[in-house]
């Protein structure tokens, strides 16, 4: 089936098999390998992307369903600088080791901070509870998101 969509601001048109997931389409057809494929059943959060501004699991949406949609991946939000401070904070706080979960963590954290700029540590933990990290034990990730929230609040003041 032929689909046309916008990915990170670029219009793309491709023929895809209906059974292909959105994340496989991004990785194999568009070579955007920043979105990762972990569990493939919606549990680990490594494939998280944004579709029409909403956070979604790239493994639980078919590529054909994104026809006509605006898709954003970690390459997009990192490229525009939208998550630059979050990325810096992740490095600063040692919030990643292997990096497999990091793209999903960044997108999920960014979504939370956009909705709740003053999110507490508990709210950050809840928001990230759908993203698995097998390296860090989460504490450093929560700290990175919290310090970013504080810095953004200060910058706005």
């Amino acid at each position, binding site marked *: 089936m032929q689909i046309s969509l916008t990915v990170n601001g670029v219009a793309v048109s491709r023929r895809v098999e209906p*059974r292909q997931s959105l994340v496989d389409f991004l990785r194999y057809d568009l070579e955007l390998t920043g979105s990762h494929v972990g569990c493939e059943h919606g549990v680990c959060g490594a494939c998280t992307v944004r579709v029409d501004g909403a956070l979604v699991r790239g493994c*639980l949406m078919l590529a*054909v*369903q994104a026809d006509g949609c605006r898709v954003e991946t970690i390459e997009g939000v990192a490229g525009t600088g939208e998550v630059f401070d979050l990325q810096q904070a992740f490095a600063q706080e040692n919030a990643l080791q292997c990096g497999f979960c990091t793209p999903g963590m960044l997108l999920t954290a960014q979504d939370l901070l956009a909705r709740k700029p003053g999110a507490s540590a508990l709210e950050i933990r809840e928001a990230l509870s759908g993203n698995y990290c097998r390296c860090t034990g989460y504490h450093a990730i929560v700290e990175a998101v919290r310090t970013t929230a504080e810095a953004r609040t200060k910058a706005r003041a």
Partner: protein
Amino acid sequence: MKPAQFAYHRPASLDEALALVERYGPDGRILAGGQSLVPALNMRLAAPAALIDINRLPGLDRIGLEPEGLVIGALARHEAVESSPLVARHAPLIAQAMPHIGHRAIRTRGTVGGSIALADPAAELPACLVALEAVVRVAGRGTRRDIAARGFFRGIYTTDLAPGEIVTAVVVPGIQPAWRSSFAELARRHGDYALVGLAVHCRVDGGAIGVARLAFCGVGATPVRASRAEAALSGRRPDPGVVEEAGRALDADLDPPGDVHGSPALRRHLARVLLARSIGQIAG
């Protein structure tokens, strides 16, 4: 972990969707939010010949106030329901339950109709509908039916839907000012399916519980109304002795399963804990 091949249809109208549902029969599956169906496809627990993607059906995601109550369209996403002022005002029980459903990236896609039609025994929404004595609205080719929520859920992943029918909306009857509600659940991690969940909808008369409706999820094949505990609460002030008595009545109301997540005894205990917390919150 890749789905088997299937034909993909994206009908543009309800009539077109119903014709496809009839054409494929048991070999076709309706794709709504896909947050349960797509995992099943990926793991090849399901391998339908065709997917009928209803996501682009116009108007099916509408949330609106009608004479018969609050009508929530089958395609309303959990996230839209969660943030709807209408739902917060006219079905606060559902608004309270929403944050417990999966994670945000699940709720942006998952739909009310999908959750109802799947009928997972641990799911939050079916229990809410049973506590609210809501109605499930379904459509087939040339047929429309309203089914009481209590009769809609028949067993594990089993509903009253007939072949060729799809869920189009749920209708929550208008609530009166004296009614209060509470949703609570206990899960090992936020976003997991509940070990036990409890939807409470009560009329509070002065300091007493006038009418109590308690619907549990995760403790049986369907949402379970705890009629003995309801009777123990009704017409009484919910002081600690009365709540304890209602908690004891749950032993006869519930026959929870044991599985890798928890034993029947654990679930019975958690059900009492939830009941005490919820009644405390409603009465407080």
